[in-house]
């Protein structure tokens, strides 16, 4: 099997993590994917299909793309979709007003640029990825926020890996098929035609052992006892939330665990350990609704 795999030029392993200097200087963060996610990523790279990623909020959907780009050493573009986003804005925007202004001023002076319409095209993430001679990792974040037609409007461009700049008639053909990651919070269903063209992966919540590894990757110098205690306390809280809310409600997430641990670590070790044994420390990092505050803080008090 390995022999065949070698023919694939790019392979993501999920092993390479940024050095402390890179974390410090470039804001990169370690990312520890599960094996099945790594497999899905490699499949998407090989088949040149977008990978649609769903999962609980805070489980690392958005961060995956940057991690893949980092490990493979590829350029990275991100496009954060808004409720008013249009599909075209992912490829280019056209400064029609600028051109009009230049045309007006040119009547008196000698600005000549406006004769060339392509001067006013500004490339956006997908456009830049198509133009780049290197394979580019593109993140399309929270695609479910936009209008229902938005994903469908992207279909043709992603399928044929080309788009047309309407204003100039220029056809841009992707030099290298970009590696596209799409995240969705599942607020709205995506159209079937779009889903058909994507590969799909659901990121599951990590196991407690994995959580320890993740925390450690972020804080390599953290004392072992503190990491384990914190993860244990976190897992208890999560289990408790699961009991009350089931699959539906918002539960504490990996990203919140990391924030919470950052606070815990900033205190003295014995102090933090002591706090972990008592009432949930620094609850404002983990509990985001008044209901949660009442329920999970009170629980612990009555136990004592």
């Amino acid at each position: 099997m390995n022999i065949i795999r070698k023919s694939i030029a790019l392979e993501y392993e999920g092993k390479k993590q940024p050095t402390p200097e890179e974390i410090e200087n470039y804001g990169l963060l370690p990312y520890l994917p599960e094996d099945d996610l790594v497999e899905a990523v490699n499949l998407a790279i090989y088949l040149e299909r977008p990978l649609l990623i769903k999962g609980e909020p805070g489980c690392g959907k958005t961060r995956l793309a940057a991690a893949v780009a980092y490990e493979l050493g590829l350029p990275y573009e991100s496009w954060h979709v808004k409720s008013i986003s249009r599909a075209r804005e992912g490829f280019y925007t056209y400064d029609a007003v600028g051109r009009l202004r230049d045309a007006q001023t040119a009547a008196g002076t000698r600005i000549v640029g406006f004769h060339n319409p392509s001067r006013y095209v500004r490339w956006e993430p997908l456009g830049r990825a198509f133009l780049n001679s290197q394979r580019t990792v593109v993140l399309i974040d929270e695609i479910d926020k936009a209008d229902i037609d938005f994903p469908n409007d992207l279909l043709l461009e992603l399928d044929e890996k080309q788009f047309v700049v309407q204003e100039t008639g220029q056809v841009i053909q992707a030099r290298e098929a970009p590696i596209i990651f799409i995240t969705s919070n599942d607020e709205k269903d995506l159209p079937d035609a779009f889903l058909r063209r994507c590969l799909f992966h659901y990121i599951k919540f990590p196991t407690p052992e994995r959580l320890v590894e993740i925390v450690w990757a972020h804080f390599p110098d953290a004392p072992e006892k503190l990491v384990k205690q914190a993860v244990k306390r976190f897992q208890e809280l999560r289990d408790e939330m699961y009991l009350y809310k089931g699959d539906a409600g918002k539960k504490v997430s990996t990203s919140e665990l990391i924030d919470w641990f950052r606070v815990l670590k900033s205190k003295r070790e014995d102090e933090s350990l002591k706090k972990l044994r008592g009432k949930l420390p620094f609850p404002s990092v983990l509990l985001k609704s008044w209901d949660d505050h009442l329920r999970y803080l009170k629980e612990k008090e009555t136990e004592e």
Partner: protein
Amino acid sequence: MIAHELPLLKLFNELREAGLPLGIDEYQLLLRSLQAGFGISDLASLARLCRTLWVKSQGDFLLFNNCFEQVMPQEGSSKMTFTLQETEFEPAEKKPTALPSKPLAGASTPTPALTMTSEVITKTTDEIRVVQSILPIHSQEEEPSSDHFTLTDEYFPITRRQMKQSWRYMRRPIREGAPTELDVEATVSEVGRQGMLLEPVLRAPRINRAEVLILIDSGGSMVPFHELSRRLVETALRGGRLGSVHIYYFHNCPTRYLYFDSTRVEARPIEDVLNELRNKRIGVLIISDAGAARGGYSQDRIALTEDFLDQLKEQFLYIAWLNPMPVSRWTGTTAEEVMHLMPMLEMSRQGVDDAIRILRGRSTHVKAQLP
């Protein structure tokens, strides 16, 4: 290519039958992935591969697991070997350099017959003979699992997917919010008037402001259709991107109160509900069998319904009635009378489409044809 020769075709067909939206394209994706060496180490990785390629939601996930277990268990290891061998005969694709001729690590002790066929395959280039040698084994394999079936919950005359597609037509785009979009025409005409560009003209972007009021008959003869109306509501909320959806429940015919939930615990006077919905362009969709389920005829019910409909018609322009009973069962029941009061349609693909056309104000002449 002959159907028997294709790997995992059975699983593919099962999933298609179960309602997963799969096509030839998806199948080819699988072939390509297998050829590249994905998912061939063991059965679990094959399942992961198929899931990544074919499963697009949590609901389909369960369906897939179910199908996979049914189709794959006994024949898993041997099929895997086929998959590999067959890749050699893919005419269009580039041949992988080194194919393992022995069974893979995960494939546990293949049957003697199989080992023989693999040899035959590797030596023969004639496709037909290869197929012939595989065929007997295949047909043996097909037999034991031929009597199973897949359970799917899409048994209504209209599937969730079709509902979603229909709801998508329910739109009334209105420009609203902060002006962020460049209005080129207005800008140009402004330039024409002023003689030069002073300021670009911006306008608000279009958003969907279509509003729907759904009134659902619940309890009594509607019990078998609760799931159907629940799905219609669910797809309206999740799939349609409507401006807003108001949902109320009633029993048989709304008289003074509408209810917030299908069990009709919390009530609200009809006047309150109507007063709150001042926009007369809100589409009103009534879901009720109008007595057609039990086949009864009640003069009282007709009168009550007429009163209520008059009240609605005073305020709203677009009202449609969806009846979960098929048209053929309306004759001689209260429903037959009610359908003369307003457009009543059966709850099928066509009916829902027509109802939404009415709610958009496109046509009010749609009428179901009694047999």
